[in-house]
C-alpha cells in the first residue's frame, strides 16, 4: 500500500517535471538518506539561496540606486505591500458587490457591523491625522535645526560678498576716472583687474550654491517616520471610505431598498392615475409605465464592480486560450497537410516564411480594425450579446478588443505548432509506414492510426512553444488594444502615475511570469502523456 503510494508519487513527480520533489519522497521512505539530502541541497537549498541573494541585491543595491521621475525603483517590501493592497482591493470590491444584493436579516446584521466599525474608526482616523501632523512637526523641527547653521553661513557669505563687491567696484570706478588716455598697457591691466573681480564673484556664488544645494537636499529628505505615518493615514482613510461605501450599499443604495422605493413610487403613480380625470389621466398613465420600467431595471441591476487584478488575470488567461485554440485549429490541419504532401508544403512555404516573422504590433491594429468593423456596436451585435449570455465566459464581456487580441495571439503563436506538426507528420518512422502499406490501410485509417499518433509528441512540443509565445504576445496586445486584462492593467498603472503604480507594475511582472510558468507546466504534462516511448521531454 505504502509502496504503491510511493510509485504513484514518483510517477506524478516525473510526469509534472517537478524533479526537485523526488528526494523528499525517497527520503520519507528512508531510501539512501545521505544521497537524498545531497539532492535536496542541490535542487532546493541552492535555488532558494539564489532567490534570497537576488532579493537582497534588489533591495540593497538596485532599488535605492535607480531613481526616476516617478520615484525610485520599488524595493521588494514595497512590491509585496502593493500586491497586498491589490488583493485587499479585490476583496473589498467583492464585499461591496455582495452587499449590494444582500437582503433581509443578513443585510441588517451586516449593516449593524459596518456601522459599528465605522464609529470606531473615527478615533483611528483622528489619531492617524494627529500622528502625521506630529511627525511633520518633528521633521520640520529637526530639519530647521540642521538647516539654521547652514543658512546663517550662506547669509554671512552673501553680506560679505556684497560689501566687498561694492568696495572693489568703487575702487575700480575711481581708478577709471584717473586712467590716462593713450597708455595702452595700463588700460590692459585695468581690464585684467575687472575680469579678476568677476572671477572672484563667480567663486563666491559657487560656494553659496553648494551650501544652498545642501540645504535643498535636507529639505527634500523624506523622514521614514513621516512616510510611515502617511501610509498609515492613507490606509485608515481608505478603510473609512470603504466602510462608508459599504454602509451605503447595505443601506439606502442597497438593491432591496431601491426596489422598495421604486415600488412606493409606482404605487403613488398608480393611485394618481386611478383618480385622474381627462387629459391628466394620460400623463399619469405615462408616469405609471415609466415607474414600472424603472422598477424592473432596478430589480435586475447589480453593483458596477471595477476590474480587479484577479478579473484581469482571468480575462487574460481566457484570451490566451481563445487565441491558442484558434491558432492550433488553423496550424494543426495545415501542418498535417504540409507533412503529408510535399506539393502542399511547397505551396505554403512562401506564406509561412513571409508571415512568421511579422511582429504582433503589426497584426494587432489590422485585427482591431477588422474586429471593430465586424462588430461596430458590441452592445447591440448578436454575436457579443450571445457571448455575454454564455454561462461561464459571459461575465468577461468579450468585445472586439478581446477578439483582436486573441486573433493576434493566434497569428503569432500558430507557426511553432504548424512547423512542428509538419515535421512530425513528415518524419513518421518508415517501419510504421511499411506496416500500414502491408495492411493496405486506407488514407484516413493510416492518418489516424499511424501518422497522427506517431507525430503527437512533436505536435505537443509545438503547442507548448505556441502557448508560451502566445502568452508573451497577449500582454503586449492587451496593452495596445485596451482589452481588459493584465496588459491593460499595466497600461493603466503607467498612465495613472500614483505613488504605488510603479510597485503595482512590478507585481504584474511576477504574476505574468508565474502564469507563464504554470501554462508551460500544463503543456509539459500533456507532452509527457502523449510521448509513447516514455521518454523525458526536455524541460
Amino acid at each position, binding site marked *: 500500500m505504502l509502496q504503491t503510494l510511493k510509485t504513484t508519487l514518483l510517477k506524478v513527480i516525473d510526469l509534472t517535471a517537478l524533479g526537485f520533489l523526488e528526494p523528499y519522497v525517497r527520503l520519507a521512505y528512508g531510501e539512501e538518506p545521505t544521497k537524498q539530502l545531497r539532492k535536496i541541497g542541490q535542487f532546493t537549498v541552492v535555488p532558494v539561496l539564489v532567490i534570497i541573494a537576488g532579493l537582497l541585491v534588489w533591495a540593497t543595491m538596485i532599488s535605492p540606486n535607480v531613481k526616476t521621475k516617478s520615484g525610485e525603483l520599488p524595493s521588494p517590501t514595497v512590491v509585496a505591500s502593493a500586491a497586498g493592497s491589490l488583493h485587499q482591493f479585490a476583496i473589498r470590491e467583492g464585499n461591496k458587490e455582495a452587499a449590494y444584493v444582500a437582503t433581509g436579516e443578513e443585510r441588517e446584521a451586516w449593516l449593524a457591523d459596518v456601522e459599528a466599525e465605522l464609529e470606531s474608526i473615527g478615533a483611528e482616523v483622528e489619531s492617524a491625522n494627529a500622528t502625521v501632523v506630529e511627525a511633520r512637526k518633528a521633521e520640520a523641527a529637526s530639519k530647521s535645526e540642521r538647516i539654521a547653521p547652514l543658512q546663517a553661513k550662506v547669509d554671512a557669505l552673501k553680506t560679505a560678498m556684497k560689501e566687498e563687491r561694492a568696495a572693489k567696484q568703487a575702487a575700480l570706478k575711481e581708478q577709471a576716472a584717473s586712467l590716462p588716455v593713450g597708455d595702452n598697457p595700463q588700460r590692459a591691466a585695468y581690464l585684467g583687474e575687472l575680469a579678476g573681480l568677476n572671477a572672484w564673484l563667480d567663486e563666491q556664488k559657487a560656494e553659496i550654491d553648494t551650501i544652498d544645494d545642501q540645504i535643498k537636499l535636507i529639505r527634500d529628505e523624506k523622514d521614514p517616520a513621516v512616510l510611515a505615518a502617511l501610509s498609515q493615514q492613507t490606509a485608515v482613510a481608505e478603510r473609512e471610505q470603504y466602510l462608508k461605501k459599504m454602509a451605503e450599499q447595505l443601506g439606502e443604495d442597497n438593491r432591496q431598498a431601491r426596489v422598495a422605493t421604486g415600488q412606493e413610487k409606482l404605487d403613488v403613480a398608480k393611485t394618481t392615475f386611478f383618480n385622474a380625470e381627462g387629459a391628466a389621466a394620460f400623463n399619469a398613465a405615462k408616469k405609471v409605465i415609466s415607474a414600472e420600467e424603472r422598477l424592473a431595471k432596478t430589480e435586475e441591476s447589480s453593483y458596477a464592480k471595477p476590474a480587479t487584478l484577479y478579473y484581469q488575470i482571468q480575462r487574460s488567461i481566457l484570451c490566451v486560450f481563445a487565441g491558442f485554440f484558434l491558432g492550433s485549429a488553423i496550424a494543426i490541419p495545415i501542418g498535417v497537410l504540409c507533412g503529408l504532401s510535399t506539393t502542399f508544403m511547397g505551396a505554403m512555404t512562401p506564406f509561412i516564411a513571409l508571415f512568421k516573422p511579422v511582429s504582433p504590433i503589426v497584426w494587432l491594429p489590422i485585427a482591431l480594425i477588422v474586429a471593430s468593423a465586424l462588430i461596430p456596436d458590441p452592445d447591440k451585435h448578436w454575436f457579443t450579446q450571445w457571448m455575454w449570455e454564455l454561462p461561464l465566459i459571459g461575465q468577461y464581456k468579450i468585445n472586439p478588443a478581446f477578439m483582436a487580441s486573441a486573433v493576434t495571439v493566434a497569428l503569432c503563436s500558430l507557426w511553432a505548432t504548424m512547423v512542428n506538426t509538419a515535421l512530425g507528420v513528415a518524419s513518421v518512422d518508415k517501419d*510504421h509506414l511499411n506496416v500500414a502499406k502491408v495492411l493496405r490501410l486506407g488514407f484516413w485509417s493510416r492518418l489516424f492510426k499511424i501518422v497522427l499518433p506517431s507525430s503527437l509528441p512533436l505536435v505537443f512540443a509545438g503547442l507548448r512553444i505556441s502557448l508560451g509565445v502566445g502568452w508573451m504576445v497577449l500582454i503586449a496586445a492587451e496593452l495596445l488594444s485596451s482589452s481588459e486584462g493584465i496588459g491593460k492593467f499595466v497600461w493603466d498603472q503607467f498612465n495613472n502615475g500614483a505613488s504605488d503604480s510603479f510597485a503595482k507594475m512590478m507585481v504584474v511582472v511576477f504574476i505574468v511570469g508565474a502564469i507563464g510558468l504554470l501554462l508551460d507546466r500544463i503543456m509539459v504534462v500533456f507532452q509527457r502523456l502523449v510521448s509513447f*516511448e516514455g521518454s523525458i521531454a526536455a524541460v
Partner: protein
Amino acid sequence: MTDRYVEIVNLVKAYPNPLGDAVRVVDGFNLTVRKGEVVGVIGHSGCGKSTVLTMVAGLNEITAGDVVVDGKVTDGPGPDRAVVFQAPCLLPWMTALGNVMLGVKRVYPHGTKQQRKEICEYYLSLVGLADAMHKYPREMSGGMQQRVGIARAIALRPKMLLLDEPFGRLDSLTRMDLQDVILGILDHEKITTMVITHDVDEAVYMSDRICMMTNGPRARVGQVLEIPFERPRNRREVLEHELYYDLRGCLIDFLEKFDKHKHPEDVAKDAKEKGESAVHESVHPVVGEYSGDTRYGSPLTLAEVGGGA
C-alpha cells in the same frame, strides 16, 4: 497449382546510376515455392536477400520480373503477404492487442468486435503472450515484441509469410524459443513461408529448402538445397541426424566460396583453374541469362551433398 504456389520469375532490382549503367542489385532471381513449404534464403550480408523479400512483399518497387502468388501477379503490398520485420516495428502507442487488431480489422471487416478480439487473443496466445495482451511495446522485452510481430503477421491469415531475419536482433536463447514458436505455428497453419537468415543452423532447422544467393551486385539464386527432415521437427533430433553436418557443410562451403570480398567471376575462374567443375551454372553472372528451371533453380541431390562435403 500447389507445386507452383508462389513463383518468383526473373526478378530484377536496379538502381539508377548517374555515372553509367543502372546498378543491378538483384538480377534474375528465380524461385518456385510449393504450397505450405518453408524456403530459407541465405547469403552474405548485403547480397540482396532483403531486397528480394521486400520486393516480394511489395514494399520495394520491382524493376523487372514478376511475383506470382496463388496464380495472381502481385501489385504492391497487401495483407496476403504478411511480413515480420527484423525490428518488431510495433506501433508504440498501441497495446499488443491493438497492434494485432489493426491488421485483423483489415482482414475480417465483417466480423463483430467480439469475434475480432477473439481472433487477436487466439494468435497472441499462440505466440505465448496470453498474459501480456494489454502491455505496451515499451513494457515488453525485444523477444516479446517480436512475438507480437509474429502474431500480427499470422493473424492476417496470409497466403505467404515473409520473415526478414526475424531473430537477427535477439539473443540466442530467445532466438531458439522463437524458432520453435514459428515452426509450431507453421506446422499447424501450413503457411507458405520465406525466411531470410544469415544463420546456417537456423536455415537448416527451419527450412524445407534453402536457397543460397550469390553475392551482389547482380545477385541471384546460386544453389538450392533440399532439407529432408520430417516435420514437425525436434531440435535435438535434427541436430543428431546423420545428414545434419553434411547439409550444414554444404551451406558453409557455398558461403565460403562467395566470401564477401570475392566477385563471383573470380570464383568461377578459380574453380576452372583448379580443374574443378564450376560451382553451378547459374552462378555465371551473365545478364539476362535464364537457367530455365524456375522451380528449383538447380537442386542438389542428397548424393551430391554427401559427395561435396
